[in-house]
């Protein structure tokens, strides 16, 4: 129970930071102050809060769980590719969006799209698709919170109650503190979970009697494939490099780019981003793999047994039985089980707080959704001019309560693991929306119809993949179920982890088709006025 108490103290500290930010902003009922902290974040807070915003439950719990089942491949799949692609997109796109926000007062991506392409309702369609895909990200945070508190308290805090506490705390500091509170909390959390990895690695390493013997024993055992990338195909590995394109297309990341006081604050963020990713992911992936050598934690042995049964007898089982075993074998909580076993109680609590820090990154998504709703819908359709800016901010706060409640209810029902849910819906969808930004910022010839085609295609593709995976049950580990082949070439297949199209993950055709639609539909349709194009490209031809 001691670790749970430490975590509750941590939650109280986070809440205090949010309320402190609220006090500091008292009297400023302006939308720009509440939603963007008056575009005033300094270099330190900007770096850590932007990075923290992008690290969710998925970074610590999902990565170690994925590594537990699939081996070291997890790091190359998501972390090192993100270390290249995300800072690159912040460098190329984030800085430009920041400059446009400063010059023209944009507070959301949709405001920029509406202005750039001279459109109104198409902007609303983009808003709707972005909002629909952002909600799963919020759900992940709540699910992670529930799982973390349940495990840290040794089962004393049930999943539903843990999720409710996390939802309440996040909702409260976002409600009161707005962007300033969220950025401060994110900075505090990022420092915590950057420390987390190194400390967890040392404590668990000592507890296990050193990693050298564990790694060498694993190398000599049937588990040696976890030290390689045998369990993942090169097509799948390549596909994953498209996923980090989603980061800059996530509205909360783009909105965060608008909060920097000066453009020079992007410099440190771009340079240190790959190192920060490595500092968090490397220990989590390594510990997730090494957890397979632990023999004295019954829960880990149960997961390994479920995995073994699934691999050996899965083919002869009913889809429901396979799903049940898949859920039992998921290792989202292995890192917490290791801490529970090897760390002293007080340290397990502190490290648990570090995990909570990553888990609670859904704050920025909640705030972003609220910003988007109040700016792209409420203000755009006349609410701000009719009721004033103070009412706009209050509307944003009410929206925060409603969206958190909705996400909590869904989190209680969702059966998927944290990792799968995130990848399948939110990440692929936002990666597919990235041509919108590239078209808007780098191509004079892009049009609103091209943007609409990209948005509709993305929504349709995400829904199609979700329906396909709901209708065709996932096969047991091993070869995929081929659904459609053409002349001996595999076109569409259901894999144990999702869907493959020409052996690639759906994100690859989704992004490529999006890019082609932006090009061809724009070429065939009317461009915005010359004055609008000059506004965006006049400075650097």
């Amino acid at each position: 129970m001691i670790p749970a108490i430490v975590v509750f103290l941590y939650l109280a500290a986070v809440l205090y930071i949010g309320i402190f930010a609220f006090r500091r902003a008292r009297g400023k009922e302006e939308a720009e102050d509440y939603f963007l902290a008056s575009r005033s974040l300094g270099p330190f807070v900007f770096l850590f809060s932007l990075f923290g915003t992008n690290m969710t439950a998925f970074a610590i719990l999902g990565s170690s769980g994925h590594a537990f089942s699939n081996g070291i491949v997890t790091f190359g799949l998501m972390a090192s590719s993100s270390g290249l692609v995300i800072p690159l997109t912040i460098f190329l796109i984030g800085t430009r969006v920041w400059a446009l926000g400063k010059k023209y007062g944009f507070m959301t991506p949709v405001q920029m799209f509406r202005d750039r392409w001279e459109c109104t309702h198409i902007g609303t369609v983009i808003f709707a698709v972005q909002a629909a895909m952002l909600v799963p990200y919020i759900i992940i945070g709540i699910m992670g919170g529930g799982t973390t508190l349940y495990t840290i308290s040794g089962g004393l805090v049930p999943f539903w109650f843990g999720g409710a506490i996390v939802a309440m705390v996040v909702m409260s500091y976002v409600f009161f503190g707005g962007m300033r509170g969220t950025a401060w909390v994110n900075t505090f959390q990022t420092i915590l979970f950057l420390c987390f990895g190194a400390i967890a690695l040392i404590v668990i390493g000592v507890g296990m009697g050193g990693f050298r013997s564990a790694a060498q024993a694993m190398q000599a055992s049937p588990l040696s494939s976890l030290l390689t990338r045998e369990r993942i195909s090169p097509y799948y590995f390549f596909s994953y490099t498209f996923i980090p394109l989603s980061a800059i297309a996530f509205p909360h990341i783009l909105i965060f780019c608008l909060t920097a006081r000066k453009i020079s604050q992007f410099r440190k963020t771009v340079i240190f981003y790959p190192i920060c990713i490595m500092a968090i992911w490397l220990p989590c992936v390594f510990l997730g793999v090494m957890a397979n050598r632990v023999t004295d934690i019954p829960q880990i042995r149960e997961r390994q047994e479920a995995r073994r049964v699934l691999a050996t007898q899965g083919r002869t089982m009913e889809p429901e039985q396979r799903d049940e075993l898949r859920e039992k074998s998921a290792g989202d909580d292995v890192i917490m089980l290791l801490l529970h076993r090897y760390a002293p109680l007080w340290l397990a609590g502190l490290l648990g707080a570090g995990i909570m820090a990553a888990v609670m990154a859904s704050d920025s998504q909640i705030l972003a959704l609220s910003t988007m709703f109040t700016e792209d819908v409420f203000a755009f359709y006349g609410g701000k001019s009719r009721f004033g800016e103070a009412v706009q901010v209050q509307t944003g706060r009410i929206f925060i309560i409603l969206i958190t409640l909705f996400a909590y209810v869904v989190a209680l029902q969702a059966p998927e693991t944290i990792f799968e849910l995130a990848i399948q819906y939110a990440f692929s969808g936002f990666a597919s929306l990235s041509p919108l930004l590239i078209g808007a910022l780098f191509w004079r010839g892009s049009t609103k119809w091209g943007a609409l085609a990209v948005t509709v295609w993305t929504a349709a593709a995400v829904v199609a993949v979700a329906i396909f995976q709901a209708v065709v049950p996932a096969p047991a580990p091993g070869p995929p179920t081929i659904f459609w082949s053409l002349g001996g070439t595999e076109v569409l297949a259901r894999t144990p982890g999702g869907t493959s199209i020409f052996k690639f993950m759906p994100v690859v055709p989704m992004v490529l088709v999006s890019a082609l639609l932006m090009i061809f539909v724009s070429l065939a349709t009317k461009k915005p006025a010359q004055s609008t194009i000059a506004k965006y490209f006049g400075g650097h031809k």
Partner: protein
Amino acid sequence: MKRILLVVAVAALYILHQDIWFWRSSYLVFGFFPIGLFYHACFAVAAALLMWLLVTFAWPSHLEREVEQAEREEGRTS
């Protein structure tokens, strides 16, 4: 020329991410660090170095000037 070299460096690093040559190797660097993991940790460091090069040699300083100019103009009109 500087820009072309930077674009080539970005493309080269992207290609180097697909290290099929270590795919099935379970060799342990320093006796505990799987080679596939070690390679990608080095890759992350290389990505940070590349970002430093981009920030140093291709920083979009025109954006800074444009914003400053817009702010000056706004100051004059208000």
